[in-house]
């Protein structure tokens, strides 16, 4: 089976300033269906640039990118938008939910564009509700983002990413704004989705978050310096239990001390 993401010798050069910045210097990468990949690297390593290229938000300066067999170099602005709408789901670091808009309406958003817009309002609503159920927030469908916790907001964002049944779910530092406990909770959602067969690519700079994935890619100065499978993979379920026990213990100690 052909890889869902196939990039060959990709370069990205920003020449808006006086000195051209060579952010990505020749990356080749195949990602197959069902993979869960973490892109890691320090800031300036080119991981965000690579992510933008993977997300079809930006075009590579050189090299080819085939997404699900489609060469994105041949597509125009609107065709790229349709591709993003149909083949990709996005989860951002800052959640990027629309303010003063209910969770359900936020999830509906991708269905208002692209091929889904021929659907009726009821179909759209039902599909969005289903995705909220997947991330366990069906009971909060009418809440505004400011009425939800960070983890809940990110789960709404994940539901939004899922709603168009994408080929790949892209997450840019999905746990960057969350505490460790909530991070594990969100990673649990990702792992569950991955088990159901959804391909996930995420950017992170935290090693423990990367250990929840199946494959880690390390970028430095625009090139992949390491590409390995995770041997000792963390399972969110276990981690949550461990954290709960630790918290209980902390309370116990505190109780004894008093």
């Amino acid at each position: 089976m052909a890889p869902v993401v196939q990039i060959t010798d990709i370069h990205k050069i920003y020449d808006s300033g006086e000195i051209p910045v060579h952010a990505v210097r020749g990356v080749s990468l195949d990602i197959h269906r069902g993979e869960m990949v973490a892109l890691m690297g320090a800031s300036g390593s080119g991981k965000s640039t690579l992510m933008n290229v993977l997300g079809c938000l930006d075009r590579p300066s050189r090299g080819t990118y085939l997404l699900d067999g489609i060469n994105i170099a041949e597509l125009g602005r609107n065709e790229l938008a349709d591709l993003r709408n149909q083949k990709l789901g996005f989860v951002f670091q800052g959640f990027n939910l629309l303010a003063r808009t209910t969770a359900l309406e936020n999830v509906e958003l991708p269905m208002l564009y692209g091929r889904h817009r021929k659907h009726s309002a009821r179909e759209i609503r039902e599909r969005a509700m289903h995705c909220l159920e997947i991330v366990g927030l069906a009971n909060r469908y009418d809440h505004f983002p400011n009425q939800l916790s960070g983890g809940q907001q990110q789960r709404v964002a994940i539901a939004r990413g899922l709603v168009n049944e994408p080929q790949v779910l892209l997450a840019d530092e999905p746990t960057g704004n969350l505490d460790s406990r909530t991070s594990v909770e969100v990673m649990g959602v990702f792992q569950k989705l991955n088990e159901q067969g959804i391909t996930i690519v995420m950017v992170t700079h935290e090693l423990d978050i990367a250990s929840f994935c199946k494959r880690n890619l390390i970028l430095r100065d625009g090139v992949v310096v390491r590409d390995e499978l995770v041997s000792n993979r963390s399972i969110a379920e276990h981690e949550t239990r461990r954290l709960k026990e630790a918290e209980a213990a902390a309370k116990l100690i505190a109780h004894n001390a008093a």
Partner: protein
Amino acid sequence: MRFTNTFRVSLRALRRNTMRSILTALGIIIGVAAVITMVSIGNGAKSMVEAQVAALGQNLITVMPGSFSSGGMRSGFGFSTTLVPEDFEAIANDVENIDGASPEVRDSQQVLANGLNWRTNVNGVGPDYPYVKNWPLTAGAMFSEQEVKSLAKVAVIGKVVAEQLFPNEDAVGQTIRIRNLPFRVIGVLGPKGVTPWGSDQDDIVLVPYSSHMRRISRRTSVSSIQIQASTPEAIDKVKVAVEDLLTQRRRGREPDFIVRTQEELANTFTATNRTMTLLLACIASVSLIVGGIGIMNIMLVSVTERTREIGIRLAIGAHGKDVLTQFLIEAVLLSTMGGVMGVLVGVGASQLVAHYMGWPILVSSLSVIIAVGFSASVGVFFGFYPARKAAQLDPIDALRYE
């Protein structure tokens, strides 16, 4: 479906900022309301003037003496003494499409009665005069053709004269003295009010023109001849016929008369009024444009404020066109809602003005249609620039925008 979706998206965006939406629309509300109110006031004033002009008599045509020249000296209009009662008789007998006609001989005399006296306008007229001038009597009757022929000493007096000379009694049947001649009062005219140029029309005594010319003023010519055409359409025909007839009667002499129609008088008034209405509408239009700029302002702020939102929409698959349509619909919705509200406020304000000024309410449907249409186009016009700005944003830049 795609348009309804975009429409729904726009509606949601407006609802998220209810207060701001209302304040933005306020500019348009005021603009549209102002246009409608101003035009209504203008129209009301116009119809008032028209009613006043109509009260002078309907379909009225006036023949006045022209100028004459004597030994090289030329007089102005109205000084010729060649408009005679025979001219009137010829018109009354020969011209078609007229409902009535009356000569008018104007004079001013001291009138005595009842131990009181009063200086007033004493005019010699024909029996048709009250009818021609649309001026019904409240008591008694107008003198007849017979009384004109017999140079009868009878008079019909105006309301003011009746009040001045017979403050406590019925004027009809009483005797007044003009130039020491007794005239029997046979009728009292209804109130007609003050003319647009300020003279009191009710301060008047009417006597048969024949009696006036032979017994009071001793003149041979009349001051004017008033003719009422049977229909508004006949006015021009009658005017031409009167001119032809009088020219014929002059037998080759210079025409020494002028024929004026009431329409010409009314036109002056309506032209003045039209200018005023136009002026008011222009002032009001300025506020509409200011309202439109207000919408553009808010939409621009809104684009900047919602850059991230636009970025999200673009990232998850919105086309530039979708964003353009969304912002355009928002702007048009704002301005048409403002327009509709403005119509309501404007109609209300017009009613209020009409109520307090005692004017007829004349909200012209044309001004409503124009105001609402204009406000919608204001939305498109001033909404387009911000909308295009939003549509052309780069998704990455928009997402990074703080």
